[in-house]
């Protein structure tokens, strides 16, 4: 699974591509683990951009749940944005909007999580690729 990462100030945006199921959940979990675990460099917010995710299985949901629990435990925010209809339905069925915040688009999520990140998103020069 292809996973792109970007950072806007204190928020990291992770954008997986494709199906999030048995075959790719481990990969996403590997990407997320260092971001969600408490450390000096850990981001204050994590946004999962699911704009290019076609499908999320229960195994994929589990990865999101683990990330959400870790983030909540250290008082950080986690959100998912850009759900495609199929994924949105899966989220609705699983009631995952109770597990993590769901926003329609990235700017909205950044604004909700961190003013600094929203500002960084507004000025491309500050955004850095990680």
């Amino acid at each position, binding site marked *: 699974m292809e996973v792109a990462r970007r950072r806007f100030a204190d928020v990291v945006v992770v954008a997986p591509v494709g199906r999030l199921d*048995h075959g790719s959940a481990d990969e996403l979990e590997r990407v997320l683990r260092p971001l969600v675990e408490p450390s000096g460099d850990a981001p204050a917010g994590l946004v999962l951009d699911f704009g290019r995710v076609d499908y999320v*299985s*229960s*195994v994929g*949901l*589990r990865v999101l*749940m*683990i990330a*959400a*629990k870790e983030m909540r435990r250290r008082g950080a925010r986690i959100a998912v944005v850009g759900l495609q209809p199929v994924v949105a339905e899966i989220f609705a*069925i*699983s*009631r*995952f909007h*109770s*597990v993590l915040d769901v926003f329609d688009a990235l700017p909205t999520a950044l604004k909700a999580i961190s003013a600094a990140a929203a500002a960084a998103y507004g000025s491309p020069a500050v955004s850095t690729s990680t």
Partner: protein
Amino acid sequence: MLVTALALLIVLAPRLTAPLREAWFDACQALSPRVVTAMPAVVVAIDGPSLAAFGRWPWPRSLLAELVDRVNGAGPAALGIDILMPEPDPLSPEELRQWRGAGPPARHREQAEWPTNDALLARALAAAPAVLAVAGLPERSGRSLRSPPFVVQDRAAASAADGLAAARIERFAGALTSVDAVDRVARGWGLVSADPVGGVIRRVPLVAEIDGTLIGALAIEMFRVAAGATSLRLVLSGPTVDGIAVGRALVPTEADGGARVYFSRRHAGRFVSALDVLEDRVDPERLRQKLVLVAVTGLGLGEVHATPVGERMPGSEIHAQLLENLYDGTLLSRPSWGPVLEAALFALLATLLIVATPAWAPRHALWVAVGGVAILLASGYAAFRTQRLLFDAATPSLALLLVFGALLVATLAEATRHRRSLEQVLQRQREHNARIAGELDAARRIQTAMLPRAESLGPDRRLDLAAAMLPAREVGGDLYDFFRLDERRLFFLVGDVAGKGLSASIFMAVSKALYKSATLRMETPDLGTLMAAANAEVSRDNPEALFVTAFAAILDLDSGTLAYCNAGHENPFRVDPVGAGVLRITDGDGPPLCAVDAFAYRGARLQLEPGELLCVVSDGVTEARNPGGDLYGSARLAAVLHRGREAPVAAGAVVATLLADVANFAAGAEPADDITVLALRWNGPSAGPAPGQVGRSEPVKKSSRAGGVQGANDATDETYLLDRRGGSE
């Protein structure tokens, strides 16, 4: 290591490899014997017919003298007498006188005037270019050895004497010569000794030292006499004999002064019968200017030796063949650098083989070995055919094959070891798989066995319930449960542990037990409270961070009120036979269990109509895929339920139809997740449980379907039959 050892062996231990080497040289000669082009030597053979005509051997030397005279009359270049006459002729008249005793005095006088036979022979020999035979003895004989002057020339050392002393030429302590009277008249004296090795004559010493005196071979001496040379010259390079010079011609020898005869096959043309010579039946031209040998060949007399060409030959023919070799320069030679070249070639090919074997297929390595041997044998044979060089191809070949064998064994051992380790890995893998399969089997059995059977509810006219769970290839985490809280209330649950395999199924088992205990502990269960309690219980011990979706409900069988809570589960379906058709229950919901700690679940309620069907499935149904990757989806599910709405069927039939439709859609594609279907029809608050039937656990309807579709209904023939059976008990 092996290569070095074998190479050193070839160079340093020629004796060890001699049998093989000589066998190869013999094979070369047998395969390609010398072709006779000229016959400079003739053997005057005292053969069977001669002995038959003139009496048995030994002949009186007067007769030998006559033979010598007749041969000499033809004008030979040299006349070699391959007969040793160490004692005076016992048939000589004076000898006869001595042991026959006295005769008439006149006869004595007459006889006394006769010359002795030895004298007659001496007179004949003196007139001829005669060369007499000398044999070397291992002990001193006391006889005086005659020999032409031998000049020793050393090309390397300052002192020829030192070289000679160091040379490994054949040495004898004593000589066996003919009687002095005969011996002294000869012009040459040649050695006739030759040691057969393994019974085969291959080499003849061309020079030897007898008690400090150098002497040439009979053939060399005949050559010298024929050439009219007065001396021989031994050419040395230090301790190595290079050859013997006769006049200006140098006969090359091996280091010890020996020469290898290149044998032709036997040839009758070399022989002239002594009988024919004595009876004057031989054209003098046969003997003119020839190197003539007089020898005894009669049966049982004289030596006969095996030769490399595979034929046994009398010593005289071997001398004749040596003379032919000397005449046309066809002696074989074993170069002193031979062993070094052989060892080097072997080392080269062996190294190639060693480098090649691990890299190439064994078949190719075999070709290298076979090719190496072929090259060795071919070049060895070619050297023999064209240059008369004795190049030992056999020993390096054998050594090469030995190396190949060792490599083969090593490779084989390596391959065997590799195969064994592979087998071990495979075995471990099998054991591992078997263990996992065993665990999975056990887990599956446990999982299936834990699921309640519909008949455990007992016959109840208000209710028709059926449920089935088909595990995916690996055990999954689907669960369903139903049990009565009391006469009025039925609890049921469908859940799905996110994840797969053993941990999910165990987590499912734990969840189910926790649920049940939490439900039963409550006096008046509220579904929201129940779900929150279950969430707390299940989350407490969840090391793998799994989560469970669950739809839990309590149905009041009298009122048709359904209290429920949905923790992240697929929304259940409602099929109202008279109302709006297929609906989904979407409220009373919250996140899956374990997903959010201490989530405040809130339940919801709804009122069922009599005859209304509830269908709760796991996502294994809606997310079943066909080989094309399409999802089964909730729309297909709703369509199936809708068809059932037209003519309401038993819950068991609903489950079976739905499972069949999913299987038909998947068209053989491996299910990725467990498939669970629970169907429940509320028939309305009718008569209540049939008297005496409640709580009985008789099977009502048993499906043969794997995974266990169980149905309980009170509107079928089966129930009727059961009722009768129940009544008969």
